[in-house]
C-alpha cells in the first residue's frame, strides 16, 4: 500500500517534468511574425495600408510636417502661443538639435520609407494579377517619394536650379531591413541624388497606378506631387505640364465654396489625395495646435495676427474671413475645426496655382491663361478678379491666401529666394538639424547641418 503510494507520487513528478516542456511554446496573439508578414499577398497588402497609417500620424503628414514648414516660414503673420517648446523654437528660428518635433518627424518618415522598401523588395509574392502587382508597387513608390520629398526640403539646404546640388541631403535607403543585426549606418546622399530618386519613384508610380483607387494613391496623386516637386526644383515647365495633366485628366473639381474644401469627413471632389481620419483612426495635429478646445484642440496654440489679415487686398474675400475666435480671444484659422476630418495633402486648387505660375515664367498659356486659373479660385471665394499681366509675386501672394497653414510657406519662400523673417532664403537657421539621436547612432552621418555643431 505504502509503496504504491510512493510510487505514484514519483510517477506524478516524472510526468510533470516531461509534460512541461511544451508549455514553453507561446505565440503572440496581437502580432504576426515577420516571416508571415512578408510571405503572403494578403499580408503585404495589409502592410501597404499600414504605411498610409504610419505616414498619416500627427508627427508626420497628420500635421507636424506642414506645421513645421509654416512656423519656420512665418514672420509676423502668425504667433505661437502654445506651451510646447519644440514649435516655439521653430517660430523663433532657434532650433536645438534635440527638438522633439524634428526627432519624431524624421523617424516617422524613415519608418514609412523602410516599410515601402520592404514591400518593393517583396513584390514577387504578388501573383494574383499583374495589375495588382503594379498598383502595390505604384502606391509604395508614391509613399516613399512623398516621405523623401519632405525630408529633403526640411533637412537640407534648398535645391537651386542650375547649380550642382551636391550639398548634403539625407540618408538614401532603398532596401528594407528584415534583419537588424546587419550594419545600419548610412551616409547622407546629396540633395541632387534624393531629388532624382523622388522623380524616379513618382515616374514609376505614375505609370503603374490606376486612375481611381478609393482613398489611396492614384496616378494623378503621383502626378500632382510631381508637379509640386518640379516647382520646388524651379523646373517651371515640367511643373506646369504635370499640373495641367492633373487638372485636365484627374476628374477632380473645385468645391463650390472655399469652406467646402476643408473639414470634410470624406474626401471632397477637390481632394486629389488626403490622409484619412475618422473618429476611431488617424490623427490630426492641425486640430491639436490650430483649434479651440471645443473643436478638440489645445485652445489655439497658433494664432492669426493682423499681418495675416492684411495680406488680403480684398476684405470680402471669403478666405480673409475664414477664422474664428479661440479660447484665449485670438483669431484661429477655420481650416481646422472638425477634429475627425480628413487631412488634404493635395487639393486641386494647388494645381491651378502651379499651372499659372509655370505659364507665367514660361510665358505660355497651357490649359488656360494664368489670370483664368487664378480667377477660378478667387471667384469661388467671392474675391475681386485679377487681370493680366500677372507676375510670379502675384502668384506667390495668391498661394499664401489660398494655401495658408497647409505647409507651403517656407518652401515657397525658399524656392523663390525670398527673405524669411529677415533671414536670407538659404540661411542655415531655416534648415532643420539632423536629430540628436541620428547623430548619436549613425557613424556615417557626418557633420550636422551648418550651425548645429558636429
Amino acid at each position, binding site marked *: 500500500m505504502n509503496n504504491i503510494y510512493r510510487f505514484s507520487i514519483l510517477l506524478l513528478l516524472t510526468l*510533470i517534468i516531461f509534460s512541461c516542456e511544451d508549455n514553453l511554446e507561446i505565440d503572440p496573439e496581437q*502580432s504576426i511574425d*515577420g516571416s508571415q508578414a512578408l510571405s503572403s499577398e494578403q499580408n503585404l497588402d495589409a502592410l501597404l495600408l499600414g504605411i498610409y497609417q504610419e505616414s498619416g500620424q500627427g508627427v508626420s503628414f497628420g500635421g507636424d510636417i506642414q506645421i513645421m514648414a509654416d512656423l519656420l516660414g512665418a514672420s509676423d503673420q502668425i504667433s505661437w502661443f502654445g506651451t510646447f517648446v519644440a514649435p516655439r523654437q521653430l517660430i523663433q528660428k532657434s532650433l536645438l538639435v534635440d527638438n522633439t518635433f524634428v526627432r519624431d518627424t524624421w523617424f516617422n518618415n*524613415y519608418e514609412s520609407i523602410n*516599410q515601402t522598401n520592404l514591400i518593393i523588395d517583396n513584390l514577387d509574392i504578388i501573383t494574383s494579377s499583374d495589375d495588382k502587382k503594379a498598383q502595390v508597387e505604384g502606391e509604395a513608390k508614391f509613399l516613399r517619394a512623398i516621405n523623401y520629398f519632405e525630408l529633403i526640403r526640411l533637412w537640407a539646404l534648398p535645391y537651386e536650379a542650375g547649380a550642382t546640388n551636391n550639398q548634403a541631403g539625407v540618408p538614401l*535607403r532603398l532596401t528594407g531591413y528584415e534583419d537588424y543585426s546587419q550594419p545600419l549606418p548610412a551616409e547622407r546622399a546629396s540633395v541632387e541624388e534624393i531629388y532624382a530618386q523622388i522623380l524616379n519613384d513618382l515616374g514609376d508610380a505614375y505609370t503603374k497606378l490606376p486612375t481611381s483607387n478609393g482613398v489611396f494613391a492614384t496616378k494623378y496623386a503621383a502626378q500632382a506631387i510631381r508637379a509640386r516637386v518640379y516647382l520646388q526644383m524651379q523646373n517651371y515647365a515640367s511643373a506646369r505640364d504635370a499640373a495641367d495633366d492633373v487638372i485636365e485628366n484627374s476628374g477632380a473639381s473645385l468645391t463650390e465654396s472655399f469652406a467646402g474644401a476643408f473639414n470634410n469627413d470624406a474626401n471632397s471632389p477637390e481632394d486629389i489625395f488626403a490622409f484619412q481620419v475618422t*473618429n476611431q483612426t*488617424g490623427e490630426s495635429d492641425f486640430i491639436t495646435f490650430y483649434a479651440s478646445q471645443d473643436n478638440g484642440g489645445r485652445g489655439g496654440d497658433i494664432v492669426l495676427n493682423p499681418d495675416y489679415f492684411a495680406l488680403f487686398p480684398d476684405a470680402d474675400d471669403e478666405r480673409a474671413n475664414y477664422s474664428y475666435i479661440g479660447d484665449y*480671444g485670438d483669431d484661429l484659422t477655420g481650416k481646422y475645426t472638425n477634429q475627425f476630418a480628413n487631412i488634404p495633402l493635395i487639393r486641386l486648387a494647388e494645381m491651378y496655382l502651379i499651372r499659372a505660375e509655370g505659364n507665367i515664367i514660361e510665358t505660355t498659356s497651357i490649359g488656360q491663361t494664368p489670370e483664368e486659373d487664378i480667377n477660378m479660385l478667387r471667384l469661388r471665394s467671392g474675391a475681386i478678379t485679377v487681370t493680366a499681366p500677372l507676375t510670379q509675386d502675384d502668384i506667390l501672394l495668391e498661394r499664401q491666401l489660398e494655401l495658408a497653414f497647409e505647409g507651403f510657406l517656407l518652401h515657397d519662400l525658399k524656392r523663390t529666394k525670398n527673405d524669411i523673417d529677415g533671414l536670407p532664403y538659404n540661411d542655415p537657421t531655416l534648415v532643420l538639424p539632423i536629430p540628436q539621436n541620428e547623430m548619436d547612432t*549613425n557613424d556615417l552621418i557626418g557633420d550636422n547641418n551648418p550651425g548645429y555643431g558636429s
Partner: protein
Amino acid sequence: MNRKLQFSLSIIAMLFCYISFAQTKTVTGTVTDDQGLPLPGVNISVKGTSTGTQTDFDGNYSISANEGSRLVFSYLGFKNQEVSVTSTTTYNITLQASADELDEILVVGYGTQSKRTLTDNIVKLSAEDIDEVPVSNFQSALVGKAAGVQITQTNGKVEGGLNIRVRGATSISAGTQPLYVLDGIPLYNGDESNNGAPTNPLLSISPNEIESIEILKDASSAAIYGARGANGVVIITTKTGKEGKSEFSVNISHGSSEPTNKRDWLNSSQYIELFREAAVNAVGSSFNDEAEAIAYIEDQFDFLAAGTDWRNNAVNTDWQDLAFQNGHVSDADFSMSGGNAKTSIFFAGSLNETRGIIRGNELRRFNGRTNINHKFSERFNIGMNLSYSRTDIDRIANDNAFVNPLQGIAQPHISPAYNEDGSPNANTIYPNFLLQEENAFYKTIIKRVNGRTFGDYEILDGLKINGNFAYDLYYQTEDNFTGRNAPFQSTNGEVFASSVNAENYIVSGFLSYDKQLGDLNTLSIVAGTELNETTRRYESVTANQFPSDDFQTVDGGADIVAGRGNRSANSFFSLFARATYDYANKYLLKASIRRDGSSRFGGNERYGVFPAFSAGWVVSEENFLQDSDLLSYLKLRGSWGKTGNAEIGDFSSRYLFAAISYNQRPGISLSQPGNPDLTWETTTQTDFGIEYGFFNGRISGEIDYYHKNTDGLLFDVPLIPSSGASSISSNIGELENKGFEFVLNTDNIQTENFQWSTSLNLAYNKNEILSLPNSNNDIVNGQNIQRVGEPVNALYMIEYAGVDPANGDALYFINSENPDGSLSKETTTNANSANRIVVGNPFPEWYGGITNTINFMDIDFSFTFQGEFGASIYNGGGRFQSASADYFDNQTLDQFTDRWQQPGDITDVPQARLFGGNGTAQSTRYLDESDFIRLRNATLGYSLPEGVIERYGLSKVRIYATGVNLLTFTDYEGYDPEARSDAGGVGQAFYSVPPARTFSVGLNVKF
C-alpha cells in the same frame, strides 16, 4: 590553581560515577516550550555518543541512556538544554525560546535554515519591523531597515510605483524589481496602470498579515530562483496559527498627513514686477519699443487676471496650497490565531483608508486571509493559505499632464482659481486642474485573490515529498470619466473603461531530505520541479458623446470610439536542486543549481543553468575561541553563483508586425525588429562576509563585500532612426555593482526595566557600466546616458556657468575636449555650442539606516533614521519654473529676489527676458544633489500594566503614537529628495508630489 583542582576532581568524580553506575536504561519524557505546548521534532542526543532520537508529534521521546550520561535537547529557535541522567527515568523538559538571533530561522527558497549555519547573505525583517508604520504599502515600511536594499517610492501619490534596488541596479532596460515570493508563490508584479504613471501592484498586501520578510541578496541564496533571481528575491511569509490558547488581536490607528515640503513661488505683485521687467528687457527681440512691450504684457496680465483688478492685487491665488490637501490615514485590522495539536489556524482582516496629500488622491483597501495547517497523520501535513483583497484608488493624472494638480504651481497668482459663482476659472494660461477635479475622475480598483494548497508527506525518515499548487489572480478595473467642462474635453464627455485580468499558476513538487548523520554531520537536500504560467487578458473601451455629465459609463456614450482587447502569456519551467551540509555547526557547505526554460527567451537560447556554491567556517566553534568571553561568535563565509533576469517582455525576441487600422480598414505595421538570440541577462555574484558577535552577542553584526557582474545586459539598443526602427532588444553590454554592507546590532542596556538596543546598517554600492552595444557608443535618452565607466542612467546635460555680470546673459561651459584631454571651461551664451557631460548619478552610493528601540517599564519607543548620499535629481520642470520669466509660468521666488538687473550684479539667476530663453536650456542649472537624512519613522507606545487589564480578560492593551517622514535634513532645493517623476526620465523630477509626513495615533488590544 584552585580551579584546576576543582576541574580535575570533577573529572575523577565523573569517571567514578561512570564506572560505578554505568547501566543502560530507557529514559522518557515530554518536551514543551515555555508556554507548556509540546514540541515535536526536538533532537535529543546522548552527549559524546552517536545515540539520538526526536520527539514525536506530542513532544514525547524515549531514548536509551546510561546513568550519568548527559542528554542534549536541541531545537531550532530554542536554547539547547542538557540534563544529567540520574536514577530517575522521566525527564520533562521545558525549552526556552532563544533570544539569540543566531538561532533565528530564515525562510529560504523551498525550505528554511538557521542563521547559525547559513552561508548566504539574507536580511530578515519581522512583523515588528513593519507593523504600525502608517504607510499604504508594506514595502515602504522596510525603508532604512535592510542593509544594501534601497527602497524608494517614486513620489507621494498613495498608489505610486516603488523602486527597490537590491545591491544596486543590475539592469538598464530590463526590469530591476526583485522577485516577490509570497508563501512560495511568485507574485504577479506587472504595472497595469493606464494613465502613464505606474502603480504598485503589491499595494494589495496588508502589512498585518506578514510574519516575516526575507530579502535574498547574494547569489548563493537567490540562485535557487534561477532566471528570476538577479534583482534579489523578497520572500514574504504570512502568519500562521499557533497551538494553544487562541489569541485575538485588534489594532486601530488614525493619523493625518501633509507634504514634507512646500516651495516658494512669486506672489501677485512680485509676478507683475518681474514680468513687466521681462517684457521691457525683450525690447529689441520680441518688441520694437518699450511702449509696445508694456502694452503687450499688460494685455497679458488682463487676460491672466480674468477681469480682476491685477493693478491692485485683487487676486493672489496660492495654487500650491490648492494642489495639496490635508491627508489622513486610518487603519483597522484584526487577527486571530489558534489551534490544537492537529490543526492550526490564522485569520486576519484589515481595512485601510489613506487620503493622499495631493488633491483628489485616495485609497481604500480591505483584506482577508485564512491560513490553515492540518496534520492528517504523523507523516502527512496539508494546508491552505487563502487571501483576498480589494483596493480602490482615486487617481490623479501623471506628473507630465497639465491636469496634474501640482502643475497648478505654473499658474500665476494673479489668476483666480474660481469664478465669482464658485465654479473653477477656465480662463487660465494652463488648464485649471480644478476643472478636472470637479468634472472628471479616474478610479482604479484592484481585486486580488491569492491562494495555495500544499502538502508534505514523509516517505522515509527525513525524506519528504512536498507538493504545491498556487494561484494568484490580479484583476483590475479602471474607470476614467471626463465630463464636458474638463480641460481638453470636446466630445461631450468621454469614458474610458478597462479591465485586466492577470493570472499566475504555479505547480511545484520537490523532495526534501534532512538527515543528522551521527552527531556532527547534518545534511539537507532539496530537489524538485516547478511550472509557472502567467496569462494576461486586457480589454478597454472608450466612448464619446454623452447626453449629459450624469452618464458616466460606456453605455451612456453614443459613439464608441476605441476598443482594445489583447492577451499575452509567458511560462517558466524549472528543475532545481540544493544541498547543504554542516559539520559540527562549524564547517558549512552549500551548493544549488537551477535550470530554467522560458517562453520569453528566443528560440536559440531557451534554457539556462544557474549554479551557486557557498561555504562557511564558524571560527568561534573552534577550540581556540570557544572559551573567549570577548568574541562570542565569528563566522567567515563566501559564495559564488549565477542568477538571471528574465524581465524582458513576453515576445521581445520576435520580429513582429502588429495589427493597425487606417480609415477603419485593417493593416499591419512593423512593430518590432527580432532577435532569436535574445535571452536572460546573467549576473555572477561573489560575496565574502564576516558575521561577528562580541560579549555574548550584545554586539553583533555582519560585514559583507560583494561583486556583481551582469553580462548579456538586456538592452533596447537604439537603432539608427533612419533605419526605420527605433530599437532592438539585445543581450549586449556588461555592468558591475560592487560594494560593502555593514551591519551592527548592539544591546546597549539590558536591565529588567530598561532595554535599549540599536541596529545600524550602512551600504556602499558602486555601479559602473563596463561595456555597451555598438562598440561602446553612448546611449542617450533625454537627460540620461549609458556610458562605459559611468553608472547606469547617469545624468547627462550641458553645464550651466552662471550669469555674465556684464549683461545678465546665461552662460554655459563649452566643455569641448582640449588637446590634453581636459575640458574647456570657456563659456558661451549659445546652448547649442555647449557640450553635454556626465553631471550626476541618479542613484545614491551610500545609503543606510539606524534604528533604536527602547523599552522602559511599560513604555516603548523606537525610531529609524534613514539616509542616502551621492544621488542627484534633475528638475525637468525647472526650465518652466525657474526660467527668468521666459514664458508666463509662475516662477520660483529666487527668479525675483536674485535676478540680474544691472551690470555688475553677481548672481546665478539671469536677466528676466520674456520669450528670451535666457538660461532655459536643459542644463545643470536645474540639477541638484539629493543627499538627505530623514527621521523615517518614530513610534512611542505605552502598554497598560498587565495587572490592570487581566481583570478584563485582556492580555495586552497598548496605545501608541507614530509618524513617518517626521524630519528631513537636506540641502536639496526641489520639493523632496524622494519626489521623482512618474512620467519618464530616471533621476528626474517633474511637478512631482513630495512624500507625506504622517502623524498617527493607535490602539492595540490583544485577548
